[in-house]
């Protein structure tokens, strides 16, 4: 079973490496270096002006450590099919889970050490702590993380009539109490507390795991969520096929569809509009880009720069919308409905015109407010109108018609 985990881990790490290469491209590394440099500089400035013995300083320490404690989840790499194929191996799964916990420690504990390390100057300046005290706090933090991961492992098993052990109030409370003792009293007492908690869970687990069933469904769900979080992050930088948007009902937006009449010509407008509003993928993209564009435009002044920037954002939105046309290609009815392909294309054009039009209008209002210049407002309006018209009515249909032909 540890062999199974090892081979899965290898596959997992290969996949992560593939994506990380894409995430840490030159631009991102460059931006990151600047960001870290800036943050480091700011931190050192704050430290210089810091006075000892203020009431909020220990609170900050506890909060930072408490949040850090939640970083680094229990990575089981369990898959959906496991609840069928590994069911007969349930007892042997314990070794698998233990191996998984051991692996999870790596990233989790590294994070803890780095954060305590970064916090060390603050502890020295603000709380006047000695090096042994800081090392003591580091030990507390590491044992606490170990405890939380053990809780995760223990709650992989069913406990009849008892609440799940890794529920968040338990996790946060345990950390809060121990860290508070460590910061306000002495880290050495906190070490004892943390060891007691860790030991108690270890003993419980040792006694119980052989008699309990694994909560397959929950574990699969937890792992799926964990992976989805990772993929979502990667998805900010590159296409990740595993990320499927979620659907939200958004009943409060139903008024948007009122003007769409239920006629044959409007069939795809009916579908596209609902898909756009209720799906989180594309609507999120449009909203994000529009909001970022508006924020930037608020701070940018000049005759041409705002116009260029607005044009760029409209182009970005329009370009990113293109794949939405194929959103329903895997629903067989898209091909079976007796609807002329031109109608589908026209519906899509309408949708793109509307979305780009609203985004352009919003950005234009910001340009006007930020610059208060008739000339800029006029130029921006003309440029935006032409661009929206070109993108929605010329570029989009051309591109999509070509794509449809290639497919047929």
């Amino acid at each position, binding site marked *: 079973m540890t062999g199974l985990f090892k081979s899965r881990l290898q596959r997992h790490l290969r996949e992560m490496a593939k994506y990380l290469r894409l995430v840490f491209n030159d631009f991102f590394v460059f931006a990151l270096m600047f960001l870290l440099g800036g943050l480091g500089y700011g931190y050192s400035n704050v430290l210089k002006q810091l006075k000892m013995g203020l009431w909020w300083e220990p609170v900050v320490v506890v909060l930072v450590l408490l949040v850090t404690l939640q970083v680094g989840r229990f990575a089981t790499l369990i898959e959906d099919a496991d609840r069928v194929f590994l069911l007969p191996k349930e007892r042997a799964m314990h070794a698998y889970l233990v191996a998984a916990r051991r692996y999870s420690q790596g990233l989790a504990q590294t994070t803890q050490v780095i954060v305590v390390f970064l916090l060390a100057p603050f502890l020295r300046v603000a709380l006047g702590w000695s090096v042994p005290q800081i090392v003591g706090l580091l030990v507390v933090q590491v044992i606490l993380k170990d405890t939380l991961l053990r809780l995760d492992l223990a709650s992989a098993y069913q406990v009849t009539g008892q609440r799940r052990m890794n529920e968040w109030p338990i996790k946060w409370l345990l950390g809060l109490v121990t860290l508070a003792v460590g910061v306000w009293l002495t880290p050495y007492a906190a070490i004892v507390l943390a060891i007691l908690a860790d030991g108690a869970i270890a003993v419980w687990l040792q006694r119980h795991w052989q008699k309990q069933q694994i909560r397959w469904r929950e574990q699969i769900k937890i792992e799926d969520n964990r992976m989805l979080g990772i993929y979502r992050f990667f998805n900010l930088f590159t296409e990740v096929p595993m990320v499927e948007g979620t*659907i939200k*009902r958004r009943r409060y937006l139903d008024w948007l569809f009122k003007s769409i009449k*239920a*006629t*044959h010509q*409007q*069939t795809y407008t*009916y*579908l596209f509009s*609902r*898909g756009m509003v*209720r*799906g989180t993928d594309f609507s999120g993209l449009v909203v994000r880009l529009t909001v970022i564009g508006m924020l930037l435009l608020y701070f940018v002044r000049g005759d041409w720069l705002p116009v260029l920037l607005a044009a760029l954002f409209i182009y970005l939105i329009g370009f990113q919308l293109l794949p939405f046309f194929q959103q*329903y290609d895997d*629903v*067989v*009815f898209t*091909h*079976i*409905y*007796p*609807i*002329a392909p031109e109608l589908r294309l026209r519906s899509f054009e309408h949708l793109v015109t509307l979305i780009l039009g609203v985004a352009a209008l919003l950005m234009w209002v910001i340009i006007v407010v930020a610059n208060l210049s008739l000339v800029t407002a006029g130029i921006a309006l003309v440029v935006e109108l032409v661009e929206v018209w070109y993108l929605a009515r010329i570029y989009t249909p051309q591109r999509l018609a070509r794509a449809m032909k290639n497919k047929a």
Partner: protein
Amino acid sequence: MALEVSHVVGGYSQIPVLKDISFDVRDGELVGLIGLNGAGKSTTINHVIGLLTPHKGTITLNGVTIDQDSQAYKQQIAYIPETPVLYQELTLREHLEMTMMAYDLDQKVAWETAHKLLKIFRLDNKLDWFPANFSKGMKQKVMIVCAFLTQAKLYIIDEPFLGLDPLAVNDLLNLIEERKKTGASILMSTHVLDTAQRYCDRFVLLHDGQVKTEGTLSELQAALPEAGESLNDIYLSMTKVDRA
């Protein structure tokens, strides 16, 4: 002659799955498409609904091929897939409305039919739910309601009996019977042979991408006299020839 499949060679890639198959479905007739897994039932259906283009041969529906007039061809077909396929973002009500729009149905008349169908399949209180979250059987019922909403000339039903509860199977068979009386044709693929034997007017037995035999039960019995009485026996003997 509603549907006429004539000398069709086809499949997903250049390697043909269907090797020159021909059969027809007449007006008001329920034809069962019978065959093992991988015999070519779904491929046949995909050709008929126009998802695949035949390498050779023609498929005509009341005199129209899909190449002549794809609109007129598709207008006549309603399809119930084996695995329910739904639009994730649409509620049940919107699925029905979308079907009405796509087939250009009169909304008032169609909604009357819809309410009747929803009642039969006990979905009438779920109009504002997302069917994507339904159980498999309930999703299948949504597919049935959407298909029978249209006044199609040809219903294509891919393996309808698995996943439906017995009551729903019975209701579906009644619906099929009712539509047959109005002159509609049904092509249905299935493995549930005893139900097929009782309800289908004719059978097309597919094996390894070829039509082994076709005809009514008595015609099949006459063609394979030593095979046995039931469709099940005939079918098993047919596949055995190949295994031996």
